[in-house]
């Protein structure tokens, strides 16, 4: 260094550097703790929905499924709704495992027999029988569960896909 640093200037510098160091040492683990959920990969085990033989074609039927909570420590599974919709496509029967979570603000939608549509009680969102948003505020169709059929038994994963 060309010029010698005065004692006073050194102490000012020390205050700033040490202060920044203290802040950084405290802040770094806190920021990591708060942001941790973003970087956590979660398991999505298969969950048995049930036998869907009895589901009539054209009538969405609600199944209550005990979804394991993989968000945190071990807690009892949480009940969720899977709407099983059967539709005639040509000669075959198509099975749609619809989520009943409204795509607007995530309230629970239900099948309204009079409207022949899914209705969300929160802000009046409406979906067709295939889950397409047809009225009210929802920005996109109902999500579908990743699913597999073993015979007539439906399994889903707690993983949603776009229609």
């Amino acid at each position: 260094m060309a010029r010698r640093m005065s004692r006073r200037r050194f102490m000012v510098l020390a205050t700033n550097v040490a202060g920044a160091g203290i802040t950084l040492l405290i802040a770094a683990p806190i920021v990591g703790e708060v942001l941790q959920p973003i970087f956590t990969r979660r398991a999505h085990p298969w969950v048995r929905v049930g036998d869907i033989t009895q589901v009539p074609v054209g009538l969405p039927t609600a199944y209550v499924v005990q979804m394991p909570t993989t968000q945190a420590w071990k807690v009892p599974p949480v009940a969720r709704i899977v709407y099983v919709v059967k539709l005639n496509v040509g000669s075959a029967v198509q099975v749609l495992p619809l989520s009943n979570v409204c795509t607007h603000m995530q309230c629970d939608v239900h099948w309204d027999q009079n409207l022949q549509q899914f209705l969300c009680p929160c802000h009046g969102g409406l979906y067709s029988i295939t889950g397409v948003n047809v009225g009210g505020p929802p920005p996109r169709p109902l999500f579908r569960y990743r699913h597999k059929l073993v015979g007539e038994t439906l399994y889903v994963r707690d993983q949603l896909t776009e229609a």
Partner: protein
Amino acid sequence: MSVEPRRSKLVARLTHPVARPLASVYRWVDERMGISDLVYKALYEAVPRRGAWTYTLGSVTLIIIALQIVTGMFLLWSYVPSTTEAWLSLNYLAHHNEFGAIVRGMHLWGAYVLLLVIGLHMVRTFVSGSYKKPRELNWITGVILFLLVLALGITGAMLPWDQAAFWTTVVTTHVLSYVPLLGHWLQEVWRGGNQVGPVTLTRTFAIHIWLLPALLVPLIGLHIYLLRRHGEHGSWVNYRNDPEESERERADRVLRAEPPYPAVPSDPAYSVPDDLDEFFPSQVGKDAIVSFVAVLIIFVMAVVVGSPLEAPANAASLTYVPTPEWFFLPLDQLLVQFPQAWMIPVGVFIIPGLASTLLIMVPFLDRSPDREPWKRPQLMVPALFTLLFLIFEALLGVNRLFNL
């Protein structure tokens, strides 16, 4: 009367009649801590005589916030912030601890009354033009405090983990996902994952009992410091503004004022109020009376109406109709009125954000020296329409939810 004899009289009044043996202890402590000086500084201040009853609203706000802190501290004696036990702990409180149930009721009704009193406090400040120079920062800190109290209200509503709390949590945290670009991550950070679960509750609890109060309390300190720095006389009703009086005569009134003005006389026309009173006991007495009425209302509502606890949270519900807390009804109605795609962020962020920014900017939107409301129709008329609009939106929301 000059300052010194008044002061010793005050000190004498504080020490003498209580108990003679205690007086010497008090003097010993006072010599080392200077309590009398503090008390004197806190209580001996000039306040305006006119409009004094409307000036009680700030003190009532402070008292209710203190009530919230104390009742909150003791709710922690009974409440467990866990998805499996929160509802059970409050259900136990409701059925096996009658006084604890009253404490919870007071915390709930305290929040409701607090929001109403803050609303009145803001209306009073707005109408009287008290946010004008040099009190712009009083207004700005006040608006931020109001927003913090709203945030405390909504996070508090999430904690019981009954149906109402659960769906409030789902909707409120999902609103964040509509933030452009960062939305999904913000929602994950609050929820502790992509769905509402155990971590969501511990995080919301931490925000409610520590993060927000830790911001609130120092800001209240700043708000009150600014009040004391500029004085309580921001309103036009406190000024004669005699055009005959010269600036020198005004300055003379400042010097001779007794009790002294706390004002920093940066606006000559509005720094020297006439018709003064002493803060203690004239204003403190009025503050105490109105605060007592507010706390009494909170207590009675807590005993008579209490705090509801709906069925436990159920993510698989086909019949439950979630309804927002009443103070979020206008915002909830905006969610209905701004449907689909890019419109949703407009209703969720742009309109409330713009409204909050305009509210904070009020002292800079209206820089005229006039404080009388009828001389500032350019502000009073839009404000009146905004208030009517909020009430209208809330009524629409109630109508929608009850006719479902």
